[in-house]
């Protein structure tokens, strides 16, 4: 028996339709088709539960209502953009600060071992605790404006970057260092050519985790006390028992977070092209 090519399968009328369609699709297209099916199933179940009267709109809203609200917030009135801008601004400023301070602190601790020994339990304590618990403190100190959101977003990312940068420095291949040393390279040359480049993968993965942390931190602080932001919108909607508003805000956050994550992956792939294919 000979093995049929994809084309032969697709054009053979005796083959069941399901297999003929599958043979026509590339693996990528097949994945997206499967995801579309899953999305339809989830939304259909949601809509079905409400229509069947198992739960009322008051508790879980309804896909159609959420879609209508998104159209209103994003297009008709466009009020979502202000909130999203506030949240993203806090994330952008906080995360940038957290990254820079985290990298510098990681390098400093790796260089001065005594300092690392002294601070280790404090850093691990702050790293291990749910850092969002510090949000009320920042709001008390900095008020309900964007400042407290920036600081919390930066604070949660800072530790990831610090620990990853430190680990990166400690994992530099000693043979590479020795090789460049024997070329007569100075200490600064070694840091510039060997230590920093070998930290880049660590810093990038820290940044991607830090980004997710920052977004969570900013939204959480907005939920506690704020005047705008997506977090504030969620908290206000839930206060008004507006389930539709809560779902619409969460959807916006999910899409934004996914987009940022994909962007980071692309950046990582480009910066680490010397590593070849990396599984992220």
């Amino acid at each position, binding site marked *: 028996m000979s093995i049929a090519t994809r084309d032969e399968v697709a054009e053979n009328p005796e083959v069941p339709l399901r297999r003929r369609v599958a043979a026509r699709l590339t693996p990528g297209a097949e994945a997206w088709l499967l995801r579309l099916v899953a999305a339809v199933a989830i939304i259909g179940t949601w809509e079905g539960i409400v229509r069947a009267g198992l739960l009322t709109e008051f508790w879980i809203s309804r896909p159609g209502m959420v879609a209508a609200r998104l159209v209103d917030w994003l297009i008709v009135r466009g009020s979502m953009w202000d909130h999203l801008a506030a949240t993203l601004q806090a994330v952008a400023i906080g995360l940038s600060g957290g990254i820079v301070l985290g990298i510098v602190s990681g390098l400093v601790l790796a260089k001065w071992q005594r300092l690392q020994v002294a601070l280790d339990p404090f850093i691990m304590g702050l790293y291990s605790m749910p850092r969002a618990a510090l949000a009320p403190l920042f709001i008390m100190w900095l008020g309900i404006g964007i400042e407290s959101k920036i600081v919390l977003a930066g604070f949660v990312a800072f530790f990831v970057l610090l620990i990853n940068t430190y680990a990166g420095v400690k994992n530099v291949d000693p*043979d590479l260092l020795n*090789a460049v040393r024997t070329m*007569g*390279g100075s200490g600064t040359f070694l840091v510039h*050519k060997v230590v920093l480049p070998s930290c880049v993968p660590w810093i990038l993965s820290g940044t991607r985790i830090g980004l997710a942390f920052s977004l969570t931190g900013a939204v959480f602080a907005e939920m506690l006390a704020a005047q705008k932001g997506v977090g504030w919108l969620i908290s206000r909607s839930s206060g008004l028992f507006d389930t539709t508003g809560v779902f619409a805000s969460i959807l916006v956050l999910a899409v934004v977070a996914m987009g940022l994550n994909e962007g980071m992956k692309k950046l990582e792939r480009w910066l680490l092209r010397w590593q070849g294919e990396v599984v992220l």
Partner: protein
Amino acid sequence: MSAAPAVAVKNLELYFPARDHGPALHVLERVDLAVPEGQLCTIVGPSGCGKSTMLNVIAGLLPPMGGEVLVFGEPSHGINRRIGYMFQKDTLLPWASAFQNVRLPLEALGRAGAGSGDSAHSLLQLVGLRGFERHYPRELSGGMRKRVQLARLLAQEPEVVLMDEPFGALDAQTKLILQEEFLRIWEQRRQTVLFVTHDLQEAIALGDRVVLMSARPGRIKGDWEVNMPRPRHITDVIQNSQFTQLFNAIWGSLREEVTLL
């Protein structure tokens, strides 16, 4: 008085510190060796005998606990820019292209100005890697990476070259080709070379002289001159009658040091 040897070690002593209350490891014991300028000196010995450690001491990566290292008659402490070192392990920077890797020693010495691009290019050409300038190490085969390392070593323009089993991890054919290439390049330049290997055939085929180190603690156990004419070709050398005589003589002494573990 004749010119000072390019490299000399005198009465070298080295211990590795004890681990978990065990005795300290005596690695090098009164090692004496002088390599005149322009000589390709190969060093063989059983594994773990301290051959590589001796190179690390000469390179200045490890301070000796006794004795001294002289480079062209002057005591050498720490890293010495006149010495180039090719490690056993692949030490190319994985994030730098072949070209950037070859240029690295020039940058390290602050010589990366005008003209350095040309010399990095011509060195890559010399080792047969023209057209691979922009490739990252992972895109090159094991043999090609060794060639880049050789080019990088030459870019440093060292007067003394230390090589630690440079072709050890390669398959037999690639190894043979790289030995030929290495001979071709070295016979043009004639730097002083200390070449550590565990392959006795390689030691005799390449070297002007073969030095045998004993099992730990490493001492110089034997010293043979290799008088086969240059330029040499590995394939011819292996058929030379002197090769067979030397092989038998050195192997007789080496096998006493090799213990089955």
